[in-house]
C-alpha cells in the first residue's frame, strides 16, 4: 500500500478509528496516512477525546457481593506480563529518543515521533496489542530519514514513515528475520524524499532483525531500520 492509496478515504475513517470499530485493513490505510498528515492526526485526537468521554456517560450498576474480593484474589493468581515485554516497550521508546537526540532540531522531531507513537498505540490497542516498537529509519549511518513502527497485536503490523529522505522514487519494502531470511511486504513511492507505508506482517516483532527500503532502480538498500533483539526474560 502506497501513500497515494492512503490519501483516499481516510477522512471517512477517522471517526471509526476513534471509536475503535475500524477494520484492520482500514486501520492500516488510515494509520499510514496519519504518519504525514497533521490535519487528520489532530482530527483523530479530537474524535478520540469525544469517544472516550462518551463511555463516561454509560450506566452504573453495583456488582454482586464479594466482587472486589474475587477480583483481588484473581489478580493474585494471574501471571504477570513477562519482564522482557515491558523492556521491549521501553527499548522502543529509547530507540526513538537516542537516535533523534543526535539530530539538529531533534526536539521537534522527537516530540512528533512520541506523539505519533502514542497515537498509534492508542489506536491499535483494540487489537489487544502486546507491544509497539519504534525504530529509526536511517539513510546513511548518521542520517535519519524517518521511523519504522512494528506492532505486535493479534495481527502484527509494520508502518514506515519517511519524512527526511534525500532520495525519491519506487522502493521495495522488505523485512529481515533473525534467521537471515528476507520477507517482502510491498512497495512505497517516495516523493520529495517523503512517503508512508503500512502492511500486516507475516512475522512477529520479536522475529524481526530489521527493515529495508530497496531502491528498485539500483537494487540497493537505501533506507534501513535495525530492530534490537529482545533481551531474554
Amino acid at each position, binding site marked *: 500500500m502506497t501513500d497515494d492509496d492512503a490519501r483516499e478515504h481516510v477522512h471517512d475513517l477517522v471517526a471509526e478509528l476513534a*471509536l475503535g470499530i475500524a477494520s484492520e485493513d482500514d486501520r492500516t490505510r488510515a494509520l499510514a496516512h496519519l504518519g504525514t498528515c497533521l490535519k487528520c492526526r489532530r482530527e483523530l485526537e479530537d474524535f478520540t*477525546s469525544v469517544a472516550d468521554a462518551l463511555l463516561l456517560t*454509560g450506566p452504573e450498576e453495583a456488582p*454482586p457481593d464479594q*466482587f472486589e474480593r474475587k477480583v483481588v484474589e484473581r489478580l493474585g493468581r*494471574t501471571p504477570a506480563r513477562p519482564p522482557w515485554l515491558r523492556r521491549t516497550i521501553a527499548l522502543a521508546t529509547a530507540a526513538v529518543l537516542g537516535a533523534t537526540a543526535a539530530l539538529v532540531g531533534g526536539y521537534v522531531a522527537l516530540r512528533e515521533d512520541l506523539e505519533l507513537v502514542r497515537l498509534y*498505540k492508542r489506536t491499535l*490497542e483494540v487489537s489487544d496489542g502486546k507491544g509497539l516498537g519504534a525504530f529509526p529509519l536511517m539513510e546513511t549511518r548518521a542520517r535519519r530519514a524517518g521511523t519504522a513502527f512494528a506492532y505486535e497485536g493479534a495481527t502484527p503490523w509494520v508502518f514506515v514513515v519517511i519524512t527526511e529522505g534525500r532520495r525519491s522514487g519506487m522502493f521495495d519494502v522488505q523485512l529481515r528475520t533473525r534467521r537471515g531470511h528476507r520477507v517482502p511486504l510491498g512497495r512505497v513511492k517516495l516523493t520529495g524524499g517523503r512517503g508512508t507505508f503500512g502492511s500486516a506482517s507475516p512475522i512477529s516483532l520479536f522475529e524481526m532483525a530489521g527493515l529495508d527500503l530497496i531502491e528498485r532502480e539500483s537494487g540497493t538498500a537505501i533506507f534501513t531500520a535495525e530492530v534490537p533483539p529482545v533481551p531474554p526474560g
Partner: protein
Amino acid sequence: MDPKRSHSDESLLAGLASGDPDAAAAFVRRFQARVFGLALAIVGDRAAAEEVAQETFVRAWKHAGGYDSRRGAVASWLLTIARNTAVDASRHSRSTPMDPDAILALAETDPAPNPEDAAMTGHEVGALREALKGLPDDQRRALIMAAFGGMTVRQIAEAEQIPLGTAKTRIRSGILKLRTALEGER
C-alpha cells in the same frame, strides 16, 4: 477533586500495576459500578457481566504499565477495556449480533453524577448526555451502537438497513456535534 479522594485515579492505577493489594482493592472499588454497569448493558446477563467485569480488571492490571495519562483519563481507558471485553464475550456467546435496542436503552438512563469522577466534571457528563439526547435519532442510534456496542459500520448499516456510506456519515456527523458540545463546556 473531591476532598474524600485520598488518591488520584493515576496513583491507584500505578499501585495496581506495582502489585499493591490495597491499591488494587481501592481501584476496583472506585470503578466497579461503572465497569459492571457497562458490561451488563452490553451482554445483558448478570453472570456474564460479572465475568466480563472481572476480566476487565485483570486486563487493566496486565496493561497498567502501558497507560499514558496524555492519551486520556484512567476511567475512559478502563471503560474502553470493559467495552471491548464485553463485545468479545457477546460475540462468542451468541450467533447473532447484539440487539441494538438493548444498547439504545443506555441513552435513556440518567444516573446521578459520580462524585468521585475526576475524568470529567459532573457538569460535562450531564452536558454530553444532553447533547447525545439532542442528536437526530439516526445519528444517536449509530453512535451508541458503535461506542457502546462496538459494532462496525457494516454491522450498523445492516442493522439499520441503510447504505454503508450513510452509516459512516451518521457516525461522523454525530461525533462532530458532540465535539462541539464538549468544547462549549471546557
